[in-house]
């Protein structure tokens, strides 16, 4: 049987999927072991024991000062920011993307600007962004939005452009004006695309969140990483990174499930 037709079973798929993670873990253990053998105080690749101790500290011990468990309060603060930013970006991306994708005049007016916007490295113009948006929660959310919304807009606009012309013509012969056309024909078909775009931009969203929190914040996962980074406390940074990755991974998975559940027609057409 050809490789492209051979499909692993459920269990095989799970264990195959776990394999690279296990390999990575082993690689880490070996490298860390070697480094620690040379210098027992090495902080760059701490042993699992010291990572475990650090995890115990941040994830299960109340901070005596605030009475909070650091990891959870950080997670909560970060997720709130991320959630708002993702929601806003999705909304902007969907609306502008559809408009740019389907209204030629808007495309002419906005596509070059959005393209340019998406190319501006937001971290280079931080001082101006902070002056415009202030230094509180809004600015953190805005940094993420500025970071990922242009991407989503452009992705959705591309996808709208890929809709077959026949569909749009057919809808017009059925009496659809521009607005109902967008609402009933384009928008519903863009939902699964939006979820794809969100999934693809999750990594960037976390990146911007962390950058924002590293610059001006007093809590959040990114803040904590920034705080302990100057001590090279990899025993805290590594579990935080793994935790962030895990959270993002779960969000990605949840979005995929959501897409499958809500838009069965989209799955039916394609192969995957």
């Amino acid at each position: 049987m050809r490789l492209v037709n051979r499909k692993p079973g459920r269990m095989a798929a799970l264990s195959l999927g776990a394999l690279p993670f296990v390999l990575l873990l082993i690689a880490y253990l070996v490298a860390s072991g070697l480094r620690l053998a040379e210098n027992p105080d090495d902080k760059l690749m701490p042993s699992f024991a010291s990572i475990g101790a650090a995890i115990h500290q941040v994830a299960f011990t109340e901070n005596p000062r605030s009475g909070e468990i650091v990891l959870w309060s950080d997670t909560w603060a970060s997720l709130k920011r991320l959630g708002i930013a993702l929601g806003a970006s999705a909304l902007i991306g969907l609306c502008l993307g559809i408009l740019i994708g389907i209204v030629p005049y808007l495309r002419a007016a906005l596509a070059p600007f959005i393209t340019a916007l998406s190319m501006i490295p937001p971290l280079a113009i931080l001082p101006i962004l902070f002056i415009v948006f202030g230094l509180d929660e809004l600015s953190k959310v805005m940094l993420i939005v500025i970071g990922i919304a242009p991407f989503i807009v452009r992705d959705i606009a591309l996808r709208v452009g890929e809709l077959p012309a026949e569909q749009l013509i057919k809808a017009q012969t059925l009496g659809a004006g521009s607005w109902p056309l967008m609402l009933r024909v384009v928008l519903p078909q863009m939902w699964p695309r939006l979820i794809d775009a969100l999934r693809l931009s999750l990594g960037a969203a976390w990146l911007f969140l962390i950058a924002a929190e590293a610059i001006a914040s007093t809590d959040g996962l990114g803040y904590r990483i920034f705080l302990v980074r100057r001590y090279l406390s990899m025993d805290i940074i590594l579990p935080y990174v793994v935790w962030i990755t895990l959270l993002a991974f779960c969000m990605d998975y949840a979005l995929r499930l959501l897409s499958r559940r809500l838009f069965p027609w989209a799955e039916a057409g394609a192969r995957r």
Partner: protein
Amino acid sequence: MNIISVRKLWKTYGEQVVLENLNLEVKEHEFVTIVGASGCGKTTFLRMLLGQEAPSRGEFLLDGRPLPNEPGPDRGIVFQRYSVFPHLTVLENVMLGLELDGRSPSARLLGRAFGSRRREARERARAMLVEVGLDAARDKYPSMLSGGMQQRLSIAQSVICNPRILLLDEPFGALDPGISSDMHRLILRLWERHRMTIFMITHDLREGFELGTRLLVFDKTRLDAQAPDAFGATITYDIPLNVKGNRLLQELDAATARTERFREEVELA
């Protein structure tokens, strides 16, 4: 006045001349069937009628005025490659045209119907689905339908809007004879009732002769073996047909009876 007037129409794609010097006058409530060799430009002609393509040269008039260069609800279409909306179920696909009906504010604002208008649209769509034999599949998505079912869905979707001009591009090509003659009856009934003007491309000569009030043959009059694209097709025959609606319906019934007889014969064999 003539509903459609075509004068000295040319259509080229790059170097290739597809249609050349086409002239045609069509009156309201004609049923024009179009036949011609594959690739000679029949679909292109329909696409121009739809406003999807612009003529390269010549005039294309609707009611004496230049054809609007965009599709509109006055001209319905069934594409050759059945195109339905993948994200709507069969029922929703058929209801779409009724929901988009431009007169109500909810249609203009949301492209949807509510309350009694919605119920009514639903009823009409269901009735249409029964007619095209898709009622059982009404909750399926298009990707789960067979080729012929998609084709019927596309027909149902277009005809339910009762456009003034109906463009059909090989609409019954993927249908078996039984369902095909059901569809003939449906189209003829709508044609009579709403006094539509119909353009239908077909490869089934018999169908062309039987359904239409007028048969157009598209063909090239000149050919250059060295440069096959140098000359385009035009209307080489324009044949008025005399069989009219009701009479034809009877003939169709007779044809169906013949099919039934065949069936019985086979059963005896």
